[in-house]
């Protein structure tokens, strides 16, 4: 179990931010940090990895103290067993894909893990390529594999899929889900994509102004109205148009646009860019096989 409890003053562009976090994470859990930019999500991951030191507090993983401001204990990133997937991938340009993975081996560690990861994350065709020649999705897969070579207990994913298109995203979500189970990791993900969060995470931690606003399962957080709908999707409002007496709200759900009819009372508190749930109660949806 990971026990995080720390305070750090961060100098942000919009002024100082007091990051104050108290959080317990169970072994094997996959949690998501969710919230607008600049609330300290990335800083949380960096503090846990030892790349940034909190001003005060305590970080305990299982029975090991990684940080304690009272006893001045602060383990270096090298001493902590963490896998970190950076937003910019951070692949080493002077090494091939395989060499990138091999570099991450611990002293005396058996090389078998490399082949295992290459197989699970399907990097076979890419292993002798230079990372600079890969596409974003391929780079991200390599970075994911490399983060796991030294068999960390904790995997930290800093918006790993933000820059990727829909199909590659879907595929990488599957990889993340697989490695999380396969290597019995405790995973912390930063994501803005509600679909992705619902699909991957056990628990969502909503951050606001450096504090935890609320935490619960993704269903409870994002579908707070607790509809008993037969089917429901989350999406983003793209347009609201008035047609005679009703309104047509266009919602982007993943990569498809859905038009929903709404009356004036429903649209009053809706603005473009809002996250919404599209649900249906009374009708039975019909399935068509397309592929």
């Amino acid at each position: 179990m990971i026990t995080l409890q720390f305070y750090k003053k961060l100098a942000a562009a919009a002024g100082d931010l007091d990051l104050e976090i108290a959080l317990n994470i169970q072994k094997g859990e996959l949690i998501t940090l969710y919230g607008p930019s600049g609330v300290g999500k990335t800083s949380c991951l960096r503090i846990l990895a030892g790349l940034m030191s909190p001003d005060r507090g305590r970080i305990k993983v299982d029975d090991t103290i990684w940080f304690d401001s009272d006893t001045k204990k602060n383990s270096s990133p090298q001493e902590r067993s963490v896998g970190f997937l950076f937003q910019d991938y951070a692949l080493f340009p002077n090494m091939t894909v395989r060499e990138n993975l091999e570099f991450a081996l611990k002293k005396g560690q058996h090389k078998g893990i490399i082949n295992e990861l290459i197989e699970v994350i399907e990097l076979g065709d890419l292993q002798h390529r230079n990372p600079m020649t890969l596409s974003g999705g391929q780079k991200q897969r390599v970075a994911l594999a490399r983060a796991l070579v030294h068999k960390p207990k904790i995997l930290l994913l800093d918006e790993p899929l933000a820059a990727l298109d829909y199909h590659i995203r879907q595929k990488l979500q599957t990889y993340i889900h697989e490695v999380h189970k396969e290597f019995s990791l405790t995973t912390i993900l930063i994501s803005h994509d509600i679909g992705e969060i619902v699909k991957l995470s056990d628990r969502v931690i909503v951050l606001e102004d450096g504090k935890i606003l609320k935490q619960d399962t993704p269903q409870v957080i994002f579908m707070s109205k607790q509809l008993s709908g037969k089917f429901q999707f989350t999406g983003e409002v793209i347009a609201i148009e008035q047609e005679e007496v009703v309104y047509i709200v266009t919602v982007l759900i993943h990569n498809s646009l859905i038009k929903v009819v709404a009356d004036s009372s429903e649209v009053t508190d809706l603005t473009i860019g809002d996250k919404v749930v599209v649900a249906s109660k009374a009708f039975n949806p019909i399935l068509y096989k397309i592929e």
Partner: protein
Amino acid sequence: MLDWDPLILTFELALVTTVILLFISIPIAQWLVKTKSGIKPVIEALVSMPLVLPPTVLGFYFLIAFSPSNSFGAWLNEWLGIKLVFSFEGLVVASVIYSLPFMVQPIQSGLAALPATLSEAAYVMGKSKITTLFRVLLPNIKKSLLTGIVLAFAHTIGEFGVVLMIGGNIPGKTKVASIAIYDEVEALNYEAANFYSLTLFAITFIILLTVYLINGGYLKRFWK
């Protein structure tokens, strides 16, 4: 018969200076990139001083400091048996300081241009700072290293003022090519002066041309 000694001495000096500079500049550059210390601007200014300071100023103070009649010079002489005034060793020490910015600055800007996540990724994998420096950072700034090596080498060849002040003009010991040229011109021996000058001109041109060819990617097929 032309005397090759000054040219050989020049390249010896440049070679020894460059090797020493490479070893001391990497830690200095890395420190300058990483540090948040308040004395960073002071160190940066000191490292860059030789760019603007007249070489004679540097030479003059070396002469004073290293002179055996001075306490520091006497201490060196007595305890380490090193005499830095009018000796090849003295030239090396002075050249190292004189060419320091030419090595430190390219390496510093090369390291600063690398994303911080490269070293952070290596640290998280459990790699030490030294391993990270040699396996990750330096291999990715080959161009900057080459620029630093060549500029420091070429700049040491071009030294005059410092060498004259601290080295004097001892044939085979401190009489480098740039001083030999001055010497020959003073003696109205234009033929010998022209020989040294032309050699230095050609060699420095070739060295710099090679750097620009390599760093401009023209020789990429051969470099990789």
